[in-house]
């Protein structure tokens, strides 16, 4: 295999693995802020138990997120040297801001959060929880800003030629608020909230099914359900707004998402399908004119198709983009149905008696995770062949001086270490869940509350 493919595989693998954790940290952070806030407000010990329990899982998640995140920061330089020189002037400020404003905040207060229970007052502890949560939210902002600039560059000019060409900032705020930043930040935040909320729903649904920790599990489940219901729905809105941006700024990506080839024709909206890139055909179930309607509110309106672009400017993996995009959408729709139905049962007072629903919720933690991954794969593969949209090709961005064998060496090491890490994560998660928020044998509810 050649250097470019190996570098791409390694980057995709390391970043996808990394992305299991930060959304979970952000989402669990939100839930912990709610739990601890309720504890401070009501003085009800049950909320303290919940905060402490989720903090243990948060600590592991956060730790792996940081460890795998540092690798990303340096992998730009090791594997994408040409790209790094090209975008350093732009990304630099975003990364510097991320480090100072976001990571500085979350990592210092993390120590107080985990080890400071007996050393600071409950209020200061709560402020630390908020600090860590806000820090992780800011982190997402700067990282998504940098990625969005790659999708929809703004506030820059190109200086130099060939290997010495690079983008330089001309307008910092235009760079930060480039056309896709805001939509994507909100979309990513909400994806993270869903990851955290469904983690909480899953674990407490499991306890409720087993008849363990019922009192606190009902409380936690309801709170997480409110978050999940609201965010599942608003995620649809931010997703739509994001897609509108793709129509305007990256029409080739939108065309790939729906497998739309005709340069300018009304386009269908597929519920599911399979794209044959050779024959330029999609077989599947579609709403005729659906995409045209979503884009232009008119089923007859033409939508720009892939063939409006020269072959070398089209994404090569159209079917993959199509599939990832549709996986994300399908899961999103399913989550809306699931949470609305559960909320309906709650209103009717039947939520915790509906065992099959709790059974679905026990496994629901996987769904936002898969949707988050699929969404990113669609976004990144849909941007191809560009690494900086319209300016620098992925095939021009990798480190020219690094050999295929070096990458193979590091890729194998990553595979081994990350497999180990993932198993450890699952093992300790399982152990913490099995162990539970407190020891039921030793303490009955009255003695600990």
């Amino acid at each position, binding site marked *: 295999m050649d250097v470019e493919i190996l570098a791409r595989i390694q980057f995709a693998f390391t970043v996808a693995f990394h992305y299991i954790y930060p959304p979970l940290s952000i989402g669990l952070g939100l839930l912990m802020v709610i739990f601890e806030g309720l504890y401070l407000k009501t003085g009800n010990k049950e909320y303290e138990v919940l905060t402490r329990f989720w903090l243990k899982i948060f600590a592991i998640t956060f*730790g*792996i997120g940081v*460890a795998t995140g*540092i*690798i990303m*920061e*340096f992998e*730009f*330089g*090791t594997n994408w*040297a040409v790209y790094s*020189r090209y*975008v*350093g*002037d732009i*990304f*630099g*400020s975003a*990364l*510097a*801001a*991320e*480090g*100072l*404003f976001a*990571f*500085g*905040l979350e*990592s*210092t207060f*993390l*120590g*107080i959060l985990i*080890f*400071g*229970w*007996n*050393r*600071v007052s409950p209020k200061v502890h709560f402020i630390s929880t908020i600090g860590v949560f806000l820090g992780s939210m800011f982190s997402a902002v700067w990282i998504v800003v940098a990625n969005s600039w790659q999708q929809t560059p703004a506030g820059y000019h190109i*200086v130099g030629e*060939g*290997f010495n060409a*690079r983008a*330089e*900032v*001309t307008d910092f705020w235009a760079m930060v608020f480039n056309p896709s930043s805001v939509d994507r930040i909100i979309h990513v935040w909400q994806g993270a909230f869903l990851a955290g909320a469904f983690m909480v729903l899953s674990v407490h649904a499991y306890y409720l099914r087993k008849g363990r920790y019922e009192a606190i599990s009902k409380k936690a489940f309801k709170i997480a359900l409110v978050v999940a219901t609201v965010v599942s729905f608003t995620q649809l809105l931010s997703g739509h707004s994001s897609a509108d941006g793709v129509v305007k700024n990256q029409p080739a990506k939108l065309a790939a998402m729906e497998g739309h080839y005709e340069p300018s024709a009304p386009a269908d909206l597929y519920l599911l399908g399979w794209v044959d890139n050779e024959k330029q055909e999609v077989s599947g179930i579609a709403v005729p004119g659906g995409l045209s309607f979503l884009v232009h509110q008119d089923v007859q309106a033409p939508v720009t198709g892939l063939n409006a672009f020269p072959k070398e400017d089209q994404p090569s993996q159209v079917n993959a983009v199509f599939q990832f995009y549709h996986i994300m959408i399908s899961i999103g729709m399913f989550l809306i149905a699931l949470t609305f139905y559960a909320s309906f049962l709650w209103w009717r007072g039947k939520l915790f008696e509906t065992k099959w629903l709790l059974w679905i919720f026990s496994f629901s933690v996987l769904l936002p995770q898969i949707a988050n991954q699929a969404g990113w794969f669609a976004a990144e593969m849909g941007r191809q062949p560009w690494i900086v949209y319209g300016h620098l090709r992925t095939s021009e961005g990798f*480190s*020219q*001086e*690094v*050999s295929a*064998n*070096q990458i193979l060496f*590091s890729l194998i*090491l*990553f595979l081994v*270490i990350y497999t180990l*890490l993932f198993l450890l994560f699952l093992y*300790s998660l399982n*152990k913490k869940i099995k162990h539970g928020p407190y020891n039921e044998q030793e303490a009955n509810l009255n003695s600990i509350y």
Partner: protein
Amino acid sequence: MENMETFLGIDYPTLWYLVVGLLFSGYAILEGFDYGAGAWHLFFRKDESRRIAINAIGPLWDANQVWLIIGGGALFAGFPVMYATMLSAMYIPFMLFLMLLVLRSAAIKFRSAEEMKWWRNSWDYIYFISNTLIAFLLGVVLGNVLQGFAIGPNYSYQGGLFFTFLSPYALMTGFTTLSLFMTQGAIFLLLKTEGRLHARLTFLLRKGMIFFIISFSVTSLYTLIFIPGVTDNFRENPVFFIIPLLSFLAVANVPRLVSKKKYFQALLFSSLTMAFLLMLVAFQLYPTLLISTLNPKYSITIYNAASSKKSLGIMLTIVLIGAPLLAFYFLFLYRTFKGKVILDDTSY
């Protein structure tokens, strides 16, 4: 030169060079005691001692790691050319460094999670090896930077791929860095422990300081004799001879303070030693960042590697706003966890 925007008479690339230098010094000082403490890990025999040693850095190491992340970000931001060329030229050592960091984090998190002897022993080995090698590799990278790289046109590295980074000089700087970190780590642990572990550490620290003084002397002599041009900048500006003088005094002051059991001051002076040594390196390289061993005209300097003055201006503003905030967070964190380690139910 295009980047001649100045602040207080210092041009922006030089200012950013100082910022990066400051961040790397902070990283060396703080993670110096983290990695250093870990490099002693197997020298502690009892399980409880090992737990105390890990929990001494427990609430701090995540925060200390921020300095690596900001330092790396600052290099990427301010000198993208240097960041890209150095990381791709030093692909193998940096990949090893990164993976060892992951293993080290895992060891801290998971080591005490189970009671089984084999479990804890395995993690103890992983923890010890990763800390030792991380400290060593950082020194190796520094040695390579001092020696220069085979950099050709377009900032491209043309040297060997797999083992070139292990030159004799780089090995020497590797051992020196390891010994410096181990000294720093032992002093830090002395501040955090009591009883028999404390007594054992005073014994270990003495060995550490001897290890440091030997490797430091050998490396310094080798540098003066075999690395061309190291004294050029000092000959031009003799007033800067104050830096090697100060670093020598700081080095000498550490054993003195240790023998008086003034460990907090000893930690300060061992930290100053690191800062002065890095200043020494920074000053002798300036304004070069990466020396080309092929042709001086291909060398990467703070001027041809720098981001635009606009970008540097923005980043300097970010630093001016962010640095006091970060300082406040750190003061609060270190104040909260001052004093000896007490193991409780939140400990690792």
